[in-house]
């Protein structure tokens, strides 16, 4: 038995109204180890680390630090003890410089000295940063580096990272892992929260697995397979993905040719020369790291931001460039944007009202400008029934539904309109496993019924499981579209970090 662990948790309980997030969790972390906290969305990982970091207080249970009882009243107290944390959502200030962002997270000190200090720390862990740039100009990887440097400058004994790779390219992930290994070699501990099995196997020395708020297993990831880890995490045997039935591609449903857009926000990305075609009965996946033009592509396709600067969009064979969202839906298109509350649905409207959101030009629901509320209500009943949306009723506010249920409602609303073309962004982002499986099944059966489907997703596993063909979006450009069986995840990862317009093209533009 080694010395007392760096951090020990005993019997942690935490409940929220309507859910027990943590139930009697024990955990111990040794100095110098990289410890994984593994679990599905909603397994209680975030709650547990918020307790460690002093954001939440447990209902029951104790924390011990180097063998002594520990009370963390606030994040500031946690930092004083030597616990640092990098959240999944960064705590950054877009309109301020990198230096200011770092200074804000530290006690008051001389700016000149801080600058030197940051440079030294950044250099010794390979974290390149330009201190005088404004944050809004930076990539997600660079932003994460700010967060890590912030933590490191406080010399933490334990660094907690919550889903750190969800915003990184595979290459950036490698860089992060090198940094983390260097930290562990110095004797610091890292608590690494993830649901990505391969990463945990590559990086972590030990893993604690949570399911439904309880600790279900401890293991050494290197001795497990991804399959065995997944079974512990999900609690049942995973069925292998159903083999995709070979389909006869039909007519082109969605065709995009040399699409270009300007950016309408100061920090936005402009799309350049995107081309792809999706035939009826086919699913195309667009992979890529967040912030590389997915949002812009989505709004160019829905028509929300007006016509593209050049290029063309055809829906079911009809030109759609000049059309707004309503006219594009009339051509047979349906859209599920990434942001559920505030974009795909309105949080403080009822489900009935929300089901009218994208059907407001359907004569079945609205004639001469007068809404037929009974018909709309029947439609929302149908959505909640057919897609198994768990709710207190169709008069519930959309904001009262869980992420998974609301997503099922939104997907259901679009699918029940039998679209010829369906564009879905992040279909299962932040959705529990059960709902994700339901949504995947529904998408697949819609394709089998002959719709052309585009899935824009950061989740490579999802794309590999669902799609017939795949392309990668990076810095507003799109890679060549390839059949899914012709590429490996590693090849896709490589495509995520580079621009896809040809060098020759750039050169010729520069000389003219």
């Amino acid at each position, binding site marked *: 038995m080694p010395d007392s662990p760096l951090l020990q948790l005993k019997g942690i309980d935490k409940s929220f109204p309507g859910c027990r997030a943590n139930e009697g969790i024990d955990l111990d972390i040794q100095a110098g180890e990289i410890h994984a906290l593994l679990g599905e969305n909603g397994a209680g990982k975030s709650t547990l680390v918020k307790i460690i970091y002093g954001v939440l207080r447990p209902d029951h249970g104790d924390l011990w630090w180097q063998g002594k009882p520990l009370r963390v009243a606030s994040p500031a107290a946690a930092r004083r003890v030597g616990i640092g944390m990098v959240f999944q959502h960064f705590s950054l200030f877009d309109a301020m410089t990198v230096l200011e962002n770092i200074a804000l997270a530290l006690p008051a000190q001389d700016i000149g000295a801080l600058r030197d200090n940051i440079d030294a720390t950044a250099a010794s862990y390979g974290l390149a940063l330009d201190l005088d740039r404004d944050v809004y100009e930076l990539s997600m990887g660079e932003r994460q580096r700010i967060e890590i440097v912030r933590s490191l400058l406080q010399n933490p004994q334990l660094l907690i990272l919550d889903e750190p790779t969800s915003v990184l390219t595979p290459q950036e992930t490698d860089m992060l892992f090198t940094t983390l290994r260097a930290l562990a070699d110095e004797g610091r501990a890292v608590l690494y929260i993830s649901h990505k099995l391969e990463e945990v196997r590559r990086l972590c020395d030990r893993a604690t697995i949570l399911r439904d708020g309880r600790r279900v297993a401890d293991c050494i990831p290197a001795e497990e397979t991804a399959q065995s880890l997944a079974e512990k995490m999900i609690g049942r045997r995973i069925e292998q993905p159903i083999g995709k039935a070979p389909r006869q591609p039909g007519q082109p449903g969605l065709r995009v040719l040399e699409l270009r857009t300007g950016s309408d926000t100061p920090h936005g990305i402009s799309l350049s020369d995107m081309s792809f075609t999706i035939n009826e009965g086919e699913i195309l996946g667009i992979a890529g790291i967040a912030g590389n033009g997915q949002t812009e592509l989505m709004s160019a396709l829905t028509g929300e931001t007006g016509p593209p600067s050049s290029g063309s969009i055809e829906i079911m064979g009809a030109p759609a460039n000049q059309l707004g969202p309503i006219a594009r839906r009339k051509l047979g298109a349906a859209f599920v944007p990434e942001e559920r509350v505030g974009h795909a649905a309105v949080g403080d409207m009822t489900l009935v*009202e929300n089901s009218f959101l994208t059907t*407001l030009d359907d004569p079945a629901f609205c004639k001469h400008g007068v809404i037929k509320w009974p018909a709309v209500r029947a439609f929302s009943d149908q959505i909640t029934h057919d897609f198994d949306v768990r709710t207190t009723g169709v008069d519930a506010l959309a904001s009262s539904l869980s992420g998974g249920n609301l997503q099922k409602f939104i997907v259901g609303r679009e699918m029940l309109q039998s679209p010829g073309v369906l564009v879905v962004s992040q279909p299962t982002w932040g959705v529990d496993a059960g709902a994700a499986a339901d949504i995947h099944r529904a998408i697949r059966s819609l394709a089998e019924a002959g719709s052309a489907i585009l899935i824009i997703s950061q989740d490579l596993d999802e794309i590999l499981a669902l799609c017939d063909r795949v392309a990668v979006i990076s810095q507003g450009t799109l890679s060549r579209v390839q059949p899914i069986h012709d590429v490996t995840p590693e090849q896709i990862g490589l495509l995520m970090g580079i621009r896809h317009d040809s060098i020759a093209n750039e050169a010729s533009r520069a000389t003219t």
Partner: protein
Amino acid sequence: MLRLEPRASHSVLAAWLSPLVALVMTVITGTVIFIAMGKDPAATLYIYFLQPLVSASGLSEVAVKAGPLVLIATGLSFGFRAGVWNIGAEGQYILGAIVGGGLAVFFHDSTNALLLPSMLALGIVGGMIWAAIPALLKTRFNANEILVSLMLVYIAELLLVYLVHGPWRNPQGWGFPGTRTFPDAAVLPVFFAQHRLHWGLILALATPFLAWFLVAKTRFGFRVRLFGSAPLAARHAGVRSTRMIWMTLLIGGGLAGLAGVIEASGTIGQLMPNISPGYGFTAIIVAFLGRLHPLGILLAGVVIAVTYIGGENAQIVAGLPKAVTGLFQGVILFYLLAFDLVTRYRLVFRRERGPEHA
């Protein structure tokens, strides 16, 4: 520890109760103020809140005051629902009075039956023109509609002052600012000879019902609500922001203009510098007190009208400054905004060991 939890669905009860609670709290506050001013609270409260309701003439005056408030507030509710903050209704009201009433000034000896309908129509147009300025500047140049519409209030007031002192001044007016009195053909008829209550009331009563139909039953109303609660979702549903800004401002301006010309024609019978006791601003309170719901606005309009009449009575009978009315109106809105919280959140008493609440 008192905590707030978001509600799963809007509480209809709380939504209707919070204006009532706000009213009760305002009365309590009023009592304190009256005592502080050395007045008998019971007597003063009676003068303020009940006396206007016990006589036929009082009721008639309440209805006369409630009319413009309800019309303007109904118009404003569209903008407020859509997140378009037109707070220049006062200016749009004045322009309605100027443009509509101007017709009566020009045809001051007319007996044409079309004069009155034309005036009402022109009043609406006048209000719309004044509201079109912030709409244009907002949609074309991104200029803040709050500030632009408000600046236009001051300009409208000065324009009215200029007109009634200058080119439109009554030649037989012994130098008093004001136009000629309107001809009979330009005056909205009264219901009863001895009271000022006129036909404008019918319009003020009908408008909220029409507005309720628009908001609750039509796609246009749905778009307005959508645009206000989630602009991105509205864009997703194909709602064009330019159109929403224009429509809601024009509705607000049109109804304010109508109120202005009705007041000039029905209640006053001429144009003069102070044709409005601040209706355009008070209507903002009416709109919120009525929870932006057209029928709620109808009730709220009556309540606020009572405080107007009560304030006038209190000035005469109890020697209270008229400004008390303005104070009450501000207080009522404060309380309302405070209790609004209850409709969105549930108050939960619970012992919590959370560090954030320590």
